[in-house]
C-alpha cells in the first residue's frame, strides 16, 4: 500500500518547490494572472513631466504625472467634443472602478485635452464630472507643453480647424496607468474591456501592497 503513493512524491515535491520559488520570482506576492494591457521591459518615465491642471473658477496648478504613494494614476489624451473614443474609454473606466469596489479609491483619474482651444476649464470640469466625482482636468497651457507630455507618453495628436467652424481631431487612443514612481506600468489599447481594466488594476495594486511590505 505505501508503495502506491511513491511515484507521486517527486511530483508533489516539485510542485511545492515551484510554488515556493515561483511567486517571489514573478515579483507578485499575491501574484495572480497576467496584465491584459501592454508593458515594456523598460517602463516609460513620465514622473518628471508636468502639465497645467484646471478647475472651473479656480486658479491653475501644476500637475505631475506621478501617483501619490501607494496609489495609481490613469490618464488619457482626448477632447470633450469626441463622440466615440473618449466617452467609451471614460465610461469603461467608470465600469472598471465599480468592479474594483474599495480599491477604486486608490486610482486617480486624469484626462488630458489635445484641443485646449475648445476645452476651457469650465467645459472640462463639467465634462469630467459626468463620469467621475473627482478627477484631474489637464489642459496644456501651450503647444510646447502638450508636445512634451505627448513625447513622454509616446502619444501624438493633431487638430485641424475647418471652414465651417468644426475641427477634425486625431489622437492616440491608448490609456495609461502611472505608478507612484512616475512609471507607465501598463498601457491599454482602445477597447480594453472594463473587466480587464479592473483585473489589471487589481494586479498592480497587489504589487504595490507587496512592495510596501517588503
Amino acid at each position, binding site marked *: 500500500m505505501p508503495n502506491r503513493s511513491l511515484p507521486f512524491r517527486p511530483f508533489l515535491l516539485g510542485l511545492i518547490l515551484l510554488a515556493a520559488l515561483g511567486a517571489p520570482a514573478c515579483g507578485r506576492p499575491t501574484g495572480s494572472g497576467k496584465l491584459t494591457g501592454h508593458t515594456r521591459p523598460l517602463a516609460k518615465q513620465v514622473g518628471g513631466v508636468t502639465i497645467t491642471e484646471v478647475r472651473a473658477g479656480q486658479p491653475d496648478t501644476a500637475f505631475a504625472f506621478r501617483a501619490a504613494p501607494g496609489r495609481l494614476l490613469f490618464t488619457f489624451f482626448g477632447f470633450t467634443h469626441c463622440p466615440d473614443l473618449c466617452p467609451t474609454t471614460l465610461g469603461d473606466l467608470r465600469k472598471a472602478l465599480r468592479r474594483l469596489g474599495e480599491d477604486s479609491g486608490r486610482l486617480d483619474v486624469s484626462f488630458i485635452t489635445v484641443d485646449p482651444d475648445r476645452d476651457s476649464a469650465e467645459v472640462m470640469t463639467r465634462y469630467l*464630472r459626468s463620469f467621475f466625482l473627482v478627477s484631474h482636468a489637464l489642459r496644456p497651457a501651450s503647444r510646447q507643453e502638450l508636445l512634451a507630455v505627448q513625447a513622454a507618453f509616446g502619444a501624438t495628436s493633431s487638430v485641424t480647424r475647418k471652414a465651417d467652424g468644426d475641427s477634425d481631431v486625431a489622437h*492616440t487612443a491608448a490609456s495609461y496607468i502611472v505608478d507612484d514612481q512616475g512609471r507607465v506600468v501598463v498601457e491599454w489599447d*482602445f477597447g480594453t474591456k472594463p473587466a480587464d481594466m479592473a483585473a489589471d488594476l487589481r494586479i498592480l495594486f497587489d504589487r504595490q501592497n507587496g512592495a510596501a511590505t517588503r
Partner: protein
Amino acid sequence: MNRRTHSLSCLVLVAIVGMAAITGCTQQPGRLPAASEGAARDAGVEIRALHARPSPDGVTVGAIFTTFRSDAGDTLVGLSVPAEVAGRIEIHSMVANAEGQMEMHEIPVLALPAGEDVELKPGGMHLMLFQLARPLVEGQSFPLTLRFARGGEKVIEVPIRED
C-alpha cells in the same frame, strides 16, 4: 407499457407544438420593433441594438450605435433627426492613420451587403449628432429617419442609454 408509450409520445407532441408556438411568438416581436417602430413602412432592413449614448454635461455632440442587416442587400443613403434633437447627423468611421492616431471620417453612404451584419460600434462606425439642441438624457428617446436605396424611408425611435 403500451399506455406509457402513448402518454410519452403525447408529451413529445405537446412539447414540439409548444416549442413551435414559442419560437413562432418570439421571432415576430424580435423583428417587429426594428421593422415597424415609428411611422414609416417596413424598409426590409433589420436594425438591432440601436441606442444613443447619454451626452456628458456641456457636450454638443453625440453618437448612435446599432447593427444593420439586410437580407437582400441595401444602402443607407441618407439620415436625419428633427432640429429639436440636433443640427446635423452624419455617418462616421474611426480609422487609424499612419501615425497610429485615431481619425474620424465621414462616410457619404453605408453599404449593407446581403445577409451581413453591419455593426456600428465604439471604435468603429457611428452615426454622429452635431449641435445637440438639448442634452441626450438616459431613459429618453428621439426619432431618427433613415433612407435606404431599395427599402425607402424609415422612422425609428432611438433609446438613450449607456450601451
